[in-house]
């Protein structure tokens, strides 16, 4: 055991740090997906596309900012602004033009519609950004590296992934929980989630709540994508792999569970990055092994509540 650590300690440390930073990104996407599902009962397959569009937009914005000669720190607000812009544009468009028409329809149809939207958005990305990988790591270089002591070793790890990503994810988790629990809008969202009829009976406009929630969820997906862009080059297909991974997180956590999504994202993020370093051939399947293992024991997910239908 001690020998194993001496040989592999550095790898394990890297796997843990990588796992935490990728968990932070997965969480931001998954929490948007689970929020939208919790409130609107629609599993949005196109959620991953919003992540990809967020990533492309942020990379373009970063490159554009640099071409204007703006200082390197400008890449950070550019990331946030890109996410906000993508959310504010795509959210209302998709909700009003598409989703609003299918809330009362069969779940299979809803799935097909959002899948169609996903396919369309994949092509839209290729149309706008082409198929060449895009990279803008200004933000990562800006924040530099931190030496992380790990056993006998010291791992130099970039501060962007080590501190900024988990910090933002934690802020999203705490902020969202407080928002839903303490503010009037949050309370209204919960009321609509729990019982749409009862909510409209006291005069709440559920249409507005759905629009707000979906836009917010879209912005979270875009934020995840935008934040990922300085750490890896953006390539076609990133939306598909993201949505599949977020589905795994959301199912593991239990549909609609926000805190659960944080734990599940951590499990799956760590599981995947450990596989990357120690058994790369299992990288792709590890998230699903975790998901299947959890669902075998708890079909409703780690934090899901099995509900019996009222009436």
């Amino acid at each position: 055991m001690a020998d194993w650590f001496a040989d592999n300690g550095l790898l394990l440390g890297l796997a843990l740090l990588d796992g935490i930073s990728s968990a932070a990104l997965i969480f931001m996407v998954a929490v948007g997906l689970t929020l939208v599902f919790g409130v609107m009962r629609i599993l949005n397959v196109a959620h991953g596309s919003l992540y990809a569009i967020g990533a492309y937009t942020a990379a373009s914005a970063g490159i554009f900012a640099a071409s204007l000669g703006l200082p390197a720190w400008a890449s950070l607000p550019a990331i946030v602004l890109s996410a906000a812009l993508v959310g504010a544009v795509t959210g209302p468009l998709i909700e009003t033009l598409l989703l609003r028409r299918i809330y009362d329809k069969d779940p299979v149809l809803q799935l097909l519609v959002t899948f169609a939207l996903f396919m369309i958005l994949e092509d839209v990305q290729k149309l706008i950004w082409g198929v060449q990988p895009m990279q803008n790591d200004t933000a990562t270089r800006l924040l530099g590296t931190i030496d992380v002591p790990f056993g006998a070793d010291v791992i130099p790890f970039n501060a962007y992934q080590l501190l900024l990503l988990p910090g933002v994810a934690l802020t999203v988790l705490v902020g969202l929980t407080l928002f839903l629990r303490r503010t009037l809008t949050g309370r209204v969202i919960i009321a609509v989630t729990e019982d749409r009829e009862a909510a409209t009976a006291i005069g709440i406009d559920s249409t507005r709540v759905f629009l707000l929630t979906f836009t917010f969820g879209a912005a979270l997906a875009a934020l995840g994508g935008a934040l990922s862009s300085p750490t890896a080059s953006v390539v076609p297909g990133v939306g598909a792999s993201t949505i599949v991974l977020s589905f795994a997180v959301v199912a593991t956590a239990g549909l609609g569970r926000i805190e659960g999504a944080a734990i599940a994202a951590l499990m799956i993020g760590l599981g995947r990055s450990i596989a990357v370093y120690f058994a790369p051939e299992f990288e792709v399947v590890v998230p699903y092994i975790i998901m299947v293992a959890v669902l075998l024991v708890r079909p409703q997910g780690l934090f899901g509540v099995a509900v019996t239908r009222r009436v």
Partner: protein
Amino acid sequence: MSVLLSARGLRLAFGGVRAADGIDLDVMQGEFLAIIGPNGAGKTSFINMTTGYLRPQAGSIAFDGQPILGLPPRKIVRRGIARSFQLPQLSGEHTVLENAALAVAAHAGFWSPWRALLRPEYRRDAEALLDSFGLLPLAHARADALNEGARKLTDIAMAVALKPRLLLMDEPTSGVAASEKMAIVETLVRVLRQAGVTAVFVEHDMDVVARFADRVAVWSQGQILALGPAAQVLEDPEVRREVIGIEAGPLLP
């Protein structure tokens, strides 16, 4: 007395079941009207049609002279018709006060994303509301910890927070312990009279009907079998046999 709500020729069928088969009904300003009848007679459907949750296949409903059929539920609420549910849908993880404050805030109409749920004026109005229902001692209890009677009252209090002119209640005392029923009815009579709210309620308990109702409408298979002053309808031999039949015991105090 003037007519507050006027339904004419309502027809609604689910498959072969007739929930409304030519319903004509006037609800008078200020009265308490009870709807009684067997399960499946269409009593709840009447509430659902009046509040915009069900669309009749034919007929019209006017509130205060204005047609309201076709309006979505939340617009009907704004016109002054509120409802409570047979199964109260309170948020279990919130307190009674927070549930009531939501209705107060919903009535106030404007909400900005960051506004606190318990901002002072919402809290004040919600507390006054709970006080009038005798619920203030339970204000900080979680809604899922309440007994059925308190849940029903909280649900009705939320409807009253909307300052309705007409309140439709679906079985306000069902599921409530027999010993608590009359206390709930007394509270409702007091609060609704004080607020000047006209009430229509579906009810199975004839003691409650006798205490609460000014008039009674007897529903059967989507039709109104009898309609009149409570004392008269409840003593009607045919109504007693057809509708109340199995409910033994004296009806009027």
